[in-house]
């Protein structure tokens, strides 16, 4: 059984194996397919139309499946690799070991935001921006510039206390746990972290920054924590909701997996 660990607890070897597997997926072209898929859903998911990956109840199971697929790809390179998570309520500084050059590399430089060092720096030649929204071909970040503070544990706890998974109209205007985690409502958790990192993470092509996976892994862990806190609260809606993925509806782009299949993460991995 795969165990997903806090990135702060990874050994030097675990960091290197993770980075090397990510770079190999990039080299082979498989990494960019994940970016394309994410970008396509970002564009296609609308509040008043069909919505699957974002701004909808299936935001959480969709990303759970998306991360599983990415983790399986990593494991096809190095079987021992699992996704780490970034608990941004604790590691909330640009000086965190997450941003060291033996892992994700650091903040972008002033002026053009280019990440100057680390495995994903443009100068290494191993991390081209092939799927992009503008002409720049280098990884960019501006940690803490778009928004000063990452969410706090108190803000996370306030969202975890919500008893209802999601609510009509099942979009960015909904009350409930899912939309408050996603960040269109309330203290703004998931969305704010994208903005805090800056660079490609603020765009529809956000998986261009490998921190995407660590961020979403923590969002996924928060869903698991919420389930433990509210064992009687289930995924909603459960049927016949236009444009929205109900509990037993299959999800695009896989078409063979439903939210119900993904509720129990312990079938696939556990969190350390």
């Amino acid at each position, binding site marked *: 059984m795969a165990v997903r660990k806090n990135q702060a607890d990874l050994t030097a070897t675990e960091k290197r194996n993770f980075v090397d597997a990510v770079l190999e997926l990039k080299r082979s072209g498989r990494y960019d*397919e994940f970016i*394309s*898929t994410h*970008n*396509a*859903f*970002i*564009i*296609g998911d*609308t*509040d*008043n*139309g*069909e919505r*699957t990956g974002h*701004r909808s109840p299936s935001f959480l199971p969709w990303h759970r499946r998306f991360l599983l697929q990415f983790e399986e790809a990593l494991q096809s390179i190095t079987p021992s690799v699992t996704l780490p998570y970034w608990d941004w309520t604790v590691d909330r500084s640009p000086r965190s070991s997450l941003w060291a050059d033996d892992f994700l590399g650091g903040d972008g430089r002033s002026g*053009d*935001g280019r990440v100057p060092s680390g495995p994903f720096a443009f100068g290494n030649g191993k991390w081209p921006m092939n*799927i*992009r*929204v*503008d*002409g*720049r071909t280098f990884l960019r970040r501006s940690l803490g510039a*778009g928004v000063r503070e990452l969410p706090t544990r108190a803000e996370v706890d306030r969202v975890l206390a919500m008893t209802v998974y999601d609510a009509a*109209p099942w*979009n*960015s*205007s909904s009350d409930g746990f899912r939309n408050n985690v996603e*960040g*269109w409502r309330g203290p703004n958790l*998931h*969305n*704010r972290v*994208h*903005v805090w990192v800056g660079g490609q993470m*603020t*765009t*529809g092509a*956000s998986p261009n920054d490998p921190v995407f996976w660590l961020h979403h892994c923590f969002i996924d862990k928060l869903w698991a924590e919420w389930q433990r806190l509210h064992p009687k609260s289930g995924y909603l809606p459960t049927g016949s909701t236009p444009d929205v993925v109900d509990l037993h509806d299959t999800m*695009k*782009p896989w078409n063979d997996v439903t939210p119900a299949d993904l509720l129990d993460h312990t079938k696939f991995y556990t969190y350390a």
Partner: protein
Amino acid sequence: MSRPTRRQVLNGSAAALAGAVLAAPVALADSAAARPAAGHGHSEGHKAPGGHEMPEPFDEVYQGRHIEGWPADEEAPENGSRARSGGPASHGTRASRGSRASQGSRSSHRGRAHPQSGQAGPHDGMDFVVRIDNDDLHVMRNADGTWISLVNHYETFTTPRALARAAVRELQGADLVPVVTG
């Protein structure tokens, strides 16, 4: 006579939509009353599906970049015609064309817009077209009337103009490129 809108041409369904354009204003007036726009509307703005007023077109140079925007069901600006759109006469023209055409077109649009079918056009699912130096910036309206763009996708803006200005700051002189969705 109003010409077919860009979106109608794209969908090949101009005839089917003509009826929707004529029939929609009453229903839209109802929904607008039921859910007033929140602080971003213009009194002369369009009523849009969902009850939010469609922002006015804009056309300006911001930090050295040409930014412009207009409701997606209108004609693209040709040789500067957009600059004349503020007057009362042209307002009447816009109102008669109306943004409800997009409501009719959206369902037929959706199959193509959604990723399952592969390539998304630059304006798929959009209510409002935004360009920076003549390149399309994909934008989207949220249910609460705020806006996001592909460049700032996790941050909301009260108007497309504010979103375009934020994109200019984010781009730091870089050009937008056509969206690749696989």
